């Protein structure tokens, strides 16, 4: 499956090798005009193992009595929406700050700033580029 390496900003072409619904390796993409078949050590050898790590988050977590505990999406969305709305209503939209991700897709980033500006009503939107 042709895609793009998830590490630095070079954007090397990466071929993910899939077998039985799991990643089994990565290979360089010779069709990429950026990397023309090259990959560095991270793209070649560190782009698949973390994906199937047993430590991946697999369900939402909510802090109860000081501990993060398993929750449903319904509960998680409900709580986040309720608390964000309450803070916006009592302290104003600028009491909320959203930090987007230089690791996530363009589409996710676009929706993050749309959530900030159109839904919450603040320009307090930034991303990890600055730091």
């Amino acid at each position, binding site marked *: 499956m042709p*895609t793009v390496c*998830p*590490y*630095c*900003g070079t*954007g090397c*072409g990466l071929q993910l090798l899939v077998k039985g*619904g799991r*990643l089994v390796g990565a290979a360089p*993409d010779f069709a990429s005009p*950026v990397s023309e078949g*090259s990959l*560095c*050590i991270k*793209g070649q*050898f*560190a782009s698949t193992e*973390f994906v199937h790590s047993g*430590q991946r*988050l*697999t*369900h*939402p*977590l*909510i*802090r109860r009595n000081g501990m*993060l505990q398993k929750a449903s999406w319904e509960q*998680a969305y409900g709580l*986040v929406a309720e*608390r964000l709305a309450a*803070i916006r209503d009592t302290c104003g939209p*600028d*009491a*909320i*700050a*959203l*930090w*987007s*991700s*230089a690791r*996530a*897709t*363009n589409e*996710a980033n*676009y*929706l*993050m*700033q*749309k959530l900030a*500006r159109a*839904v919450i*009503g603040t*320009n*307090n*939107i*930034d*991303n990890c*580029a*600055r*730091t």
Partner: protein
Amino acid sequence: MSNSIREMEDASFLLVVGSNTTETHPVIALRMKQAVRKGARLVVVDPRKVELVRYAHRWLPLHIGTDIALFNAMAHVVIRDGLYNTTYVREKTEGLAALEEHLKGYTPEYAAQVTGLSAEAIVQTAHEYAAADRASIVYTLGVTEHTCGTHNVQSLANLAILTGNLGRWGTGVNPLRGQNNVQGAGDMGCIPTDLPGYQKADRPEVRAKFEEAWGRPIPSRPGLTKVTAVDQVLKGRVKAVYIMGENTVVSDAHASHTRAALEAADLLVVQDIFLTETAQLAHVVLPAACYAEVDGTFTNTERRVQRVRRAVEPPGEAKPDWLILSELAGRLGYPMAYRHPSEVWDEVAGLSPILAGISYRRLEQAGGLQWPCPSGDHPGTPYLHADGPESGKAYFSLVHHVPPAELPDAEFPLVLTTGRRRSTYHTGTMTGRASGFKLLVPHELLEMNPTDAAALSIADGEEVLVTSRRGQVKVAVKVTDRSPEGTVFMSFHFPDSTHTNLLTSDARDLITDTPELKACAVRVEKLSGR
């Protein structure tokens, strides 16, 4: 980047500044090596003896934080010796006389004193840069992560404008960006001042366009940058923080300050793929799909939008970021009915002139498209400013050398500078889970010059205590001449054992708020004998 990665091979002169390219951007470094093979001159400007120095014709090991003195002196020499591009300067720029006046004091001799370089090397580099047919400036965070980061970039840009090294194949000013979609995050408007496509949020006609598309008012009040928001949480003015995909308490400068702020927030939501050190502080953690589990696009450092493809399913109940944000928006009374990321992209392209001609259909071709791409039949733009500066005229910047905010003193006599290493990445959430990588670099290392190590009777491999005004960590020493005397280096890849950013300073650039991660004062002590 003003230019494309592949153009680097065709540069005849490469000025690489504050960039450990072979380690942080190894595949781009291949292009640099290729350029050298094809006859280009390579000058490396870096206080550390980075690997790229091996391939360089000249290494300029300036003192940390003295970039402006060097580049202003180079510009001084270019003007003094009449080496600038008279046609380009006359037709495309404004303010040469003011620049010449401003640079009067930046003689090579003055810059030599400030930077620790020889005046002769400064003059030679200026002459070679100006004489080169296609000179390209390449820089990374060694330039920007300073309190004078923006001015550092402007002093480099002066050189490109003076010599007309802009708007042609293989020339230009080229920042190498460190994260896969750091370019895209900015392009998409995840900055307080800009809506998608760098359309300014303080302009009423821009807001009106987005208000019409989104059906909601867009605030005109300026927003907070991330580092300012951290301060405002501690002052009680910001109550909620929502973080998507960032291990902030490990990656950001002055970590104890950041952690205190996130712990003080009334609501902290973290959306990520692992329970990072930051997610552990959250009230709500939302499990996200990773890059191999989503459809979408990333934009690389040369403005190239490329397709990311879903190869496997996310684990458990984890969901793609775009879907989580859409569903949450619905709970906040703003339904988003996107069925696929391509529908989100279509909306972006419809609202952003620089991306208007890019569609998922066109992105099926290998390599994607480079913006600006204003229409469906536009081939994309490999290099910017081909018809002169995008802004009409290029303006020279009158900037002065300012030393780093924190200089070494009797109590903290060494300068700590930070960066990445080749086989580990950032906070280690991904590379830290690749088994073989622990063999390559098992733990943090403090790189220290042999002279400094001898003065403190520290042996290679010995564990020491490093202290700054903000924190303290233990770390093993690697004695190496990669570090100049008086300067030590650490990465920040091993927060469990050595949390480097407890030490770093959050003194900031006045314009961008970027912290000075490249320089803070520290003390190194032996553990025994304390």
